[in-house]
């Protein structure tokens, strides 16, 4: 696996945390689960970027690919929100 496939995922988490700290209010458990599920479905629909095989997808099953930065960004946003608090 090339480093270029992992770096965008790491960057997406960092950027997610940065913007997650700008969220206010309370995010319910239901909303959190909804957002994670939607981002996984979205990542599957977008597919892996060109010339990448995605961390969890293509190496396991050819043709299956996830846009991992989308999932990473969502996780990062939720982490950023959790760090900031309500």
């Amino acid at each position, binding site marked *: 696996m090339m480093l270029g496939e992992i770096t965008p995922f790491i960057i997406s988490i960092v950027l997610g945390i940065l913007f997650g700290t700008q969220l206010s209010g309370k995010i319910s458990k239901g909303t959190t689960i909804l957002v994670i599920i939607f981002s996984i479905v*979205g990542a599957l629909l977008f597919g892996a970027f060109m010339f990448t095989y995605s961390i969890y997808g293509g190496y396991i099953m050819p043709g299956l690919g996830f846009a991992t930065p989308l999932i990473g*960004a969502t996780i990062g946003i939720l982490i950023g929100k959790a760090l900031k608090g309500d």
Partner: protein
Amino acid sequence: MDPSELRGKRGIIAVIALLIIGVGLMSSLEKLAGNVNPGISRIYNILAYLVAPNNLSTWVYDWRGFDTLIETAVIYVGAVVSALVIGRGVVQMKHFSQEAPVSSPPLEYRTESLTVILRLFGLPAAILLLSYGIMVVTGSSTSGGGGFQCGVIMTSAYLLAAIFYGKENPIRFGKRFLVGIGAVGLGGYALLGLPGFLASGYWQYNVGADVWNLVSPTLHSIFGDPFRLALHLQEGVFYSTPGIVPLINIAEAFNVIGAIGLIYFAFLYGWSEQPEDQEKGGK
């Protein structure tokens, strides 16, 4: 802005940064004399695919770096000027300090006017839009994404949440955050040219891709390896890296988020003299 604010450390840093950037740009422009071919040059077609897998990204940043840098500056300055015109109070001009700053009436928080779908899915949609924006910028060197697109998507999420929730906007990009992120983006874009200038004499030379073999292997590795990909093509397997292009895209995204976010912020909430903790996000 009071010129006296530029005295001290900030002023010295600003002057030094401007001098370095100015010397670098002028020096690079001087070296371009006689080396520019109009239109899509033969050299571009030979080398472009070596720089970044995405030709659009290659075109915009590696081959039109100066042009895009100036565009970036224009966007940021335009946004700040728009905020000045709309809000007045942002730089605390003496003439206007006696008058009340122009501000829009506060937006009401009326969730009862929202449909069930919007009330339940408004916040998730805004969060997912933020995620999508981040995904677009991280995939800029391999897909049809980039800094501009990311900035527009992220600020769309901000506007969407503002329309849904009014002054209770869950995405609270305060003016300090927006000004800061825009400045970091613009400064980051400009300074990413420094390694190339120091190593090759050309401002914004892509030290990560290094198609002309001008930089040391260490510098090439530092900026190139983190984004290196294996390109499995019919002709064989090639190892290519976009170099500094992804970093420039992130800087560009920050700049656009700051610029467009500032305009939205000023339009929606107006500027005031209140401390930010009292008005952040329009409160």
